[in-house]
C-alpha cells in the first residue's frame, strides 16, 4: 500500500507554473490594501456572527479552523504548461508550486525579511560568495526520502543544469560554483562572483528543493508533473492548461516560520482549473462553483462589486518585482535617442490618471521601476510627475516645435513613436491620448507574438513593453543588465556608456549583503534608470484574488502567490 502510494506520488507529483514575477515585499502601497482587506473581512465576520460570539471578534480568522473540504481555485490560463518549480516562470503555476514544494527560507511579505523554513539558520560570508545553511531535522519528501544536505546539493546542481530552461534560475544562481555537503544537516553553497540576492532566491519556488528522484527525470517530464516536493500538499496530477489536483500530506510538520498552522493542512486538497472568460470566472465564484477566482489582470471594479455583493472578499497585493514598464529604443537614431525627448516623455505621461482610469480610483500609482512590494523599491514619484509644461519646454529645447495640427515637428519630421503591442488595451490607448496632448504621435502597432519576437530582436520599434519579473531588486537585471542578458530590452534601451554604468550599478547591488549598502546601491540604480530614460513605468502590477465567504485564513506569499497552509473552509 505504502509502495503504491509512493509510486503514485512519484509519477504524478509536479506542476505547471507559469509566472513572471517573484520578489520581496516591503511596506509601500501594499499596506493600505492589506488594511482595507482586513477591515472588510472583519465587517463580514461581525455581520455573519451577529456580533461577538466567542473569540475576540476582531478578525474572522480567529475563528476555530475546521478541517476538511477541497479548495477550488480558478486561474485564467496556463500558457507555459509547466509545473516544475525549478523551471517555470508562469506565476499561476508558481502559486500551485508553493503549496507542494518547500524552500530553504521564506520571505516575510510585510517586511521583506528572510525567515527560516527548511533551513533553521544560515551564515553568509561578507563578500556574498559563501552561504552556509543548517537544515531542519526530520524533514522528508513525499516519496519518503529525507531532505538532507546532499538533497539540497542535488537540487541546486539540478537547477544549474537546467540552464536556460530555467528562465529565472539562471539569474537566481548567477555565478553558482558548487554546493558542498559539510555534514547531513549542513550545506555550503559557493559562488564564483558575489551574489547577494541568493539568500532571497532560496525563499522562492524557483529554488524549491525537490526530491533527488525528481532530478533523474528529464526536464520535460518534470514540467509535465514528475516532481516531488516536501510540502504540505502533494501534487496528485497535473494536466497542462486543464487541471491540477493537490492533496493533503499526512504528517507535515515543517512549515515556514510565517505559517500559523504548524501541522497538517486543514484542506483535504486543492483543485485547480482554468477559466479564460472573466464573466464566467466571476459568475462561478458568486454561484459557489469555485472558492477562489485568481485572474492575471486585476479584477475590474465592476466585477469586484459583483463579488462583494455576493458576500465575497477581494484580496489584493502588488506583485513584487519589475513594475509594468516600457523600454525605449535609443539606438535606432529615432527621436528617443535624444535624452531630452525621453525626459519629456515622463512628464507627458500622467500615471495617476492611468491608474484611476484603466483600473480604479484607489489603485496604487506606480512610483518607479519596481512595484511597491519589492524590497529597496524607491519612491521616484517626483521624477515621474505629470508636467505638461515641463514636457513642452524640454521638447522645445530639443528642437521639436509645435505644428498647426498640434503635433511636434523637427526638420519637417513628425514626432512619431512606434509602440509594439500584441493587443490594444485601454492602457495603451490612454497613453496615446496623453502623449497627443504633448504633441507626440504614439503609433500603436499591434502585432502577433511571433512578429513581436522578430521586430524587437531586430530593433524595429521606438517603444516596447517589458515584463520579466523576479523577487529581489536584482530581477531588473534580467531585462536591463547587459552582463546578464542580451534581450532586446537591454540591447536597445541603453547606449554603450549608459549600459556600462547600469551594469556597474547592478553589480554593486549584488556585491554586498549589508542591507544599508544594498539599499543605497539600488536607490542609485533606480535614480540612474529614470534620470537617463532607460525605463518608463506605467503601472503597479497588482494581483487581485476574489474569495468566496467560505474561505478563511487566506495568505499571500512575499511573491504574491497563494499560501494555503492556513486556509480552511467554513461549511
Amino acid at each position: 500500500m505504502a509502495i503504491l502510494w509512493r509510486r503514485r506520488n512519484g509519477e504524478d507529483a509536479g506542476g505547471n507554473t507559469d509566472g513572471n514575477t517573484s520578489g520581496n515585499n516591503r511596506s509601500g502601497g501594499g499596506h493600505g490594501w492589506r488594511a482595507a482587506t482586513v477591515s472588510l473581512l472583519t465587517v463580514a465576520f461581525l455581520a455573519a456572527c451577529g456580533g461577538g460570539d466567542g473569540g475576540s471578534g476582531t478578525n474572522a480568522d480567529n475563528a476555530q479552523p475546521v478541517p476538511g473540504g477541497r479548495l477550488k481555485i480558478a486561474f485564467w490560463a496556463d500558457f507555459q504548461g509547466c509545473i516544475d518549480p525549478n523551471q517555470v516562470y508562469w506565476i499561476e503555476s508558481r502559486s500551485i508550486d508553493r503549496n507542494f514544494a518547500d524552500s530553504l527560507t521564506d520571505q516575510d511579505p510585510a517586511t521583506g525579511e528572510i525567515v527560516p523554513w527548511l533551513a533553521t539558520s544560515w551564515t553568509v560570508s561578507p563578500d556574498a560568495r559563501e552561504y552556509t545553511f543548517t537544515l531542519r531535522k526530520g524533514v522528508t519528501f513525499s516519496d519518503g526520502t529525507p531532505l538532507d544536505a546532499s538533497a539540497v546539493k542535488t537540487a541546486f546542481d539540478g537547477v544549474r543544469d537546467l540552464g536556460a530552461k530555467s528562465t529565472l534560475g539562471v539569474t537566481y544562481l548567477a555565478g553558482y560554483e558548487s554546493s558542498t555537503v559539510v555534514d547531513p544537516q549542513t550545506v555550503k553553497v559557493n559562488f564564483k562572483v558575489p551574489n547577494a540576492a541568493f539568500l532571497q532566491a532560496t525563499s522562492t519556488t524557483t529554488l524549491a528543493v525537490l526530491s533527488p528522484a525528481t532530478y533523474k527525470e528529464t526536464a520535460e517530464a518534470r514540467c509535465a508533473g514528475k516532481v516531488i516536493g516536501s510540502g504540505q500538499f502533494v501534487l496528485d496530477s497535473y494536466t497542462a492548461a486543464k487541471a491540477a489536483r493537490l492533496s493533503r500530506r499526512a504528517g507535515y510538520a515543517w512549515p515556514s516560520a510565517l505559517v500559523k498552522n504548524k501541522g497538517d493542512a486543514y484542506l483535504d486538497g486543492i483543485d485547480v482549473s482554468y477559466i479564460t472568460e472573466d464573466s464566467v470566472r466571476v459568475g462561478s465564484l458568486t454561484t459557489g462553483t469555485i472558492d477562489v477566482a485568481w485572474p492575471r489582470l486585476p479584477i475590474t471594479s465592476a466585477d469586484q462589486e459583483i463579488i462583494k455583493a455576493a458576500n465575497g472578499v477581494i484580496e489584493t497585493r502588488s506583485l513584487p518585482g519589475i513594475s509594468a514598464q516600457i523600454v525605449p529604443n535609443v539606438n535606432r537614431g529615432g527621436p528617443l535617442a535624444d535624452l531630452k525627448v525621453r525626459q519629456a516623455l515622463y512628464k507627458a505621461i500622467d500615471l495617476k490618471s492611468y491608474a484611476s482610469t484603466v483600473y480604479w480610483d484607489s489603485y496604487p500609482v506606480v512610483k518607479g521601476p519596481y512595484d511597491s512590494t519589492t524590497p529597496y523599491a524607491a519612491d521616484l514619484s517626483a521624477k515621474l510627475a505629470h508636467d505638461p509644461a515641463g514636457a513642452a519646454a524640454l521638447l522645445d529645447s530639443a528642437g521639436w516645435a509645435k505644428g498647426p495640427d498640434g503635433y511636434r515637428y523637427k526638420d519637417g519630421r513628425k514626432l512619431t513613436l512606434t509602440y509594439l503591442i500584441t493587443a490594444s488595451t485601454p492602457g495603451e490607448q490612454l497613453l496615446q491620448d496623453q502623449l497627443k496632448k504633448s504633441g507626440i504621435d504614439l503609433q500603436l502597432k499591434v502585432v502577433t507574438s511571433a512578429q513581436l519576437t522578430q521586430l524587437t530582436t531586430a530593433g524595429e520599434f521606438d517603444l516596447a513593453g517589458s515584463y520579466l519579473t523576479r523577487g529581489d531588486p536584482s530581477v531588473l537585471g534580467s531585462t536591463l543588465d547587459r552582463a546578464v542578458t542580451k534581450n532586446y530590452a537591454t540591447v536597445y534601451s541603453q547606449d554603450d556608456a549608459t549600459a556600462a554604468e547600469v551594469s556597474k550599478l547592478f553589480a554593486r547591488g549584488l556585491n554586498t549583503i549589508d542591507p544599508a549598502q544594498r539599499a543605497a546601491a539600488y536607490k542609485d540604480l533606480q535614480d540612474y534608470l529614470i534620470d537617463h530614460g532607460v525605463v518608463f513605468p506605467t503601472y503597479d502590477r497588482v494581483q487581485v484574488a476574489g474569495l468566496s465567504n467560505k474561505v478563511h485564513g487566506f495568505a499571500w506569499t512575499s511573491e504574491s502567490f497563494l499560501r494555503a497552509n492556513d486556509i480552511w473552509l467554513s461549511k
Partner: protein
Amino acid sequence: MFRYLAGRLAQALLVLWAAYTVTFVILHVLPSDPVTLQLAAGGVDVSQLTPGQLHSMEARYGLDEPVLTQYFGRLWDALHLDFGMSLTQNVSVGTLVSDRLPSTIVLALVSVGLFLVFGVGLAYLASYVQWLPARVLLRRLPAVGISLPTFFVGLLLIQVFAFSLGWLPARGTEGWRSVVLPAVTLALPGSAMLAQVLIRSLGDTWQEPYIVTARAKGLSRWAVQLRHAFRNAALPALTLLGVLVGYTVTNAVVVETVFSRNGIGQLAQQAVLGQDVPVVQAVIVIAAAIFVAVNLVVDLLYSFLDPRVAHTARVT
C-alpha cells in the same frame, strides 16, 4: 460505384496532404527564425544561450536539418500519427490530442443532432404552416440566429441557465449536463443556416409539377411534404450539413473557450497563441480529416438519395 468511391477517397487523401503541406510551409518557411520562436514558445530565454547551446537545442528539435528533410521526416511521422512533442506542454502531441479529442467529438455530435432537430424542424414548420403571420415569423427566425455572435450567445446562456437559474453547469466537461449549453451555442448559427437553405429549397420544390400531381391524387399537405417535397429538397441542405459539421470543429475554438471545455478547439487556440507548431499542425490535420470524412459521407449519401450523381461521375 466502386470507381466513384475510389476517386473520392483519392481526392480526400490529396486534400489531407495539401492541408499538411500548406500548414508546414506557413509555419516553417514564413517566420524568419523558427528556432528562436520555438525556443521562446517553450519558455527558454534565447538571449541566455551560447551559440553552442543554441545549436544543440536546434538539433534536439530537429531544426538544424534542411527544410526538405524536416518536411519529409515529419510527413512520414505524421503518416504514422506521430506529430512529435508539444513545445509548450512537454508531452507528446498524440497524448494531448487523444486527451482533448473525445470532448470535442461529443460536443460536435450533440450539436449536429441539434442542427438536424432545430434546422429541419424549423424549416419543416415554416413550410407547412399556412397562417401568414406565423409563416413570416418562422421564415425570418434563421436570419436572427445567424446574426447572433457565438460568444455572445454562449455568455448569455451561461448567465441565464447557469448563474441565474442554476440548471446547468457553466463550464467543464464532466457529465452530460455540461454538454447542453455549449452544444446549443454551437448549434444555433448552424441550424439557422440549415433552416434557411431548407426553407428555400422546400419552397422551390412546392412549385414542382409532381407536387401538383401528388396533391391532385388527394394526398394531404403533410403527406406530400414528407414523402415528395422533403426528399428532393434535402439535397442542398445535405451539402450544407457537411460543411457545417466541419465548422463545428472551428467554431469549437470560441465555444470551448467560453465554456472552459478542454477540447481540440481550446487546444488550437492555446497552441496558436503559444506558437506551438507541432500541435497547430496536428490540429489542422485533424480538422481537415474531419472535413474530408464528413464530406465524403455526404457525397456518398448524395448518390444514395439521388442516383444520378454517381452515374454522372462515371461518365465524366
